[in-house]
């Protein structure tokens, strides 16, 4: 019975996503503008903290728009959001570990290659 239910979802099943086309066009336009902005960061040669902040801000905005609206995660249930957003915390921890490791390797190289 369960299997049948999965294999033949009814036409009115709420898993379907119905949104006006205008929503997709707005998100699309926003993504275009944000991409243009992140390209401008490079074109105008911003440097240092300002560059990195802007790159990250535009990147997260674009990623958020794609995940939430194009992939319809905004309308998914909380259990699905947790499934997708909790495991990547391990990635954040890995980034912290590897950046401190990279610093250590860099310092070791400087000490042993350039300061005999």
């Amino acid at each position, binding site marked *: 019975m369960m299997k049948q239910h999965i294999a033949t979802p009814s*036409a009115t099943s709420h898993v379907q996503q119905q949104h006006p086309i205008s929503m997709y066009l707005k998100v699309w336009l926003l993504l275009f503008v944000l991409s243009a902005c992140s390209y401008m960061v490079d074109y105008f040669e911003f440097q240092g903290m300002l560059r990195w902040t802007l790159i990250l801000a535009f990147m997260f905005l674009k990623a958020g728009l794609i995940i939430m609206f194009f992939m319809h995660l905004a309308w998914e*249930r909380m259990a699905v959001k947790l499934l997708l957003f909790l495991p990547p915390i391990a990635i954040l921890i890995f980034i912290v570990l590897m*950046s401190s490791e990279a610093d250590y390797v860099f310092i070791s190289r400087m000490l042993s290659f350039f300061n005999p």
Partner: protein
Amino acid sequence: MPNNQHQEHTEADKSSSWQSVKNDWGADKQAFDMPWGKLMMWIFLLSDTFIFSIFLISYMNVRMSVTVPWPNPSEVFALTIAGHHIPLVLIAIMTFILITSSGTMAMAVNYAYQGNKKKTVYLMVTTALLGASFIGMQAFEWTKLIVEEGIRPWDNPMGANQFGAAFFMITGFHGLHVSAGVIYLALIAKRVNQGKYDNKGYQIVEITGLYWHFVDLVWVFIFAFFYLW
């Protein structure tokens, strides 16, 4: 019967989304209320997130620890068009193409659920063609880097050798995903056109769309971290 249960939960969920998590996991039913193919695609994409993260983290690691200068991507990927020297121009065009393909894919999903088969197929084919043009530009970019600049995965005349390794690994793996996506899209578009999903429902188009949007999503991160940083 299962449908009635879902309806009740949806009403109760409006009060608290944490309550809905409790209901989904605590009740004697499948935890994730979606077609199994869609759930499997989400889990696959989650695992793929880890793979791309590992590539990007290893890139971060080598870039932070090299003692020779890292080539400036803005200059490496610059092109001279009609006498104008434009930094990163091909990459910018590729970014816009991929975003456009994501837009056409999102609309294909929408038309699929409206039951408009013809528009769905057209939009999916458009998405696949945009993806194919992306691969074409990437092939051009790789050729330029290998033949003209002499960059190899183990060698780089412009500075840090790790630049070549990271570049070919990351963009190559992403390019493979785009290529697989183009084949996947073409296949599903053909089957939709043949009417194979008329009775099953068009969830498959949304599942294909999830994969395609993910490929676009990964490019957002590669664009930011590899090309702009």
